[in-house]
């Protein structure tokens, strides 16, 4: 397993760091949520790569097929994707409410308004 063999995992690490960076560096609340999504997506790729068996097919019994991929991580990550969707939905709902209450979704402006009051 050289660099190419670990290709998926390099992508995972890249996405994870990129997402994490967006969450920390951006002041726009929507952009932060997008970063959070990228961060979570990296974990999806991690799990899916883990379940893949080289040369294996989908785990359905058929003639002449002996190697199957491991379906468990794939099923697990379906759950995590659902959780991710729920988190994003809730996050966006909060941003809508914040926008209504403050009239802005920039972190710095919100902070400023809180300081004044």
């Amino acid at each position: 397993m050289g660099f190419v063999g670990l290709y998926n995992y390099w992508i995972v690490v890249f996405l994870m760091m990129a997402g994490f960076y967006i969450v920390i560096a951006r002041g726009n609340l929507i952009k932060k949520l997008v970063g959070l999504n990228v961060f979570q997506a990296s974990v999806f790729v991690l799990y899916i790569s883990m379940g893949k068996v080289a040369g294996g097919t989908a785990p359905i019994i058929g003639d002449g097929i002996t190697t199957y991929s491991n379906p468990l991580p794939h099923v697990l990550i379906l759950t995590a994707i659902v959780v991710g969707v729920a988190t994003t939905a809730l996050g966006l709902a909060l941003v809508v409410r914040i926008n209504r209450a403050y009239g802005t979704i920039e972190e710095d402006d919100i902070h400023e308004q809180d300081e004044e009051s």
Partner: protein
Amino acid sequence: MIATHLPVLQVVVPLIAAPTCILLRGKNWAFMLALLATWAAFAMSCMLLARVLDDGVISYELGGWAAPWGIEYRIDLVNAYVLVIVSGISSAVIAYTRQSMLLEFVREREYLFYSSYLLCLTGLLGVTITGDAFNLFVFLEISSLSSYVLISLGPDRRALTAAYQYLVMGTIGATFIVIGVGLLYHATGTLNMVDLGARLPAAGYDRVVVAAFAFLTIGAALKLALFPLHLWLPNAYTYAPSSVSAFLAATATKVAVYILLRFFFTVFGAEFSFETLPTAVPLMVLAIIAMFAASTVAIFQVNVKRLLAYSSVAQIGYMILGLSLVTVGGLTATILHLFNHALMKGALFLVMGCVYYRLKSVHIDGFAGLGRRMPWTMAAFVAGGLSLIGVPLTAGFISKWQLVLAALDSGLWWIALLVVLSSLLAVVYVWRVVEKAYFEPPPAGHDKVEEAPLSMLIPTWTLVCANIYFGIDAELTVGVAQRAAVELFGGVQ
């Protein structure tokens, strides 16, 4: 029949009650159902604890699928004990919410509050009871998502930003936990926690396992608000509705500490967690910084709820300090403090709710003269505050005493000294409020302020009395905590 399915009913009852609350909608029905479901959960967890004390570990196979393939609910002393904490506190708080919500929430949408409350309870109970690492993550997210909703219901608009901030940090923490669980599955091919504990030594502690350990530790530390990952906590507890602050402060962080204990001891094993890897020293340093830094910050707060939130960060320091001693005594102190801190912080945040109910604010200046206006509320604050400091005859004393004994046993007399010194800081911040309430005349126009309604005082005083009771008769709590600590160290019998 019901007895055999008790472990799953513990989670299913609040889970089913949550959507039913939305269907019922009626003014009183949703509340009655939430109350019944929560109290039923408390009764069930007491029965489970009694059974575990008598017969040892209970293992329940969900859907009849044998572990380690199926999901197993595995209840030993440690999680039976945490279940009682979570469901007990939520039972006291739910009785209190009705009245306190009058001011803080729209009456017509009340049922949505009860629904989220029950979901949060489901998640916390599920995290505690499950023996499956991935199932733990799913329940953790159920409890987290509903707690973001609960926090955002606070009366101030800053509740929204606090909930958002918690959502971002909490999601990062939970995602770290998933990454850790995934890496563990990669290394061993199992998700059952006991099975993981058995297979990890054979799989070898290679870099994947070390990475999994790091991700899980950081993820759990974010959730339990270990200094310096506590940044979400003060805002969340300050701006959430008072009953939610009481509920979350007393349960959510405790469950996160439980996750940490479970992974350190059951999954990775004490030898790998503390001898192969140098985990104990950083934890100890962070715990001590938390004790002093957070207590010092608490002293300068003018919002009393925020003061209590910072004090929570400090108290979590004590729990982690006990853990970092890596002795049965230290772990006993940690487990004991989970229970005792839940009682005292629960009581104190409920007091904040009573004060807010009458004053519409918890600013420290508003407390002037409250000792005479709201004698029962302020007496509850004094009792809770004494417990927070660790004065003898309160629950707080018992856990600090155990912590000091454990430190002395390990020959670390300076740790014992630091525990006592940091308690002095607690004296300062509790005294600031007490001084205002009892030694300053009430400001003009305060004549109308009267005692909080009985439906809020009774739950508050229930927790206060529990504080005093478990401070005098600690046989049960110390006994269970000690046995739980031995069990964690000896692996699972």
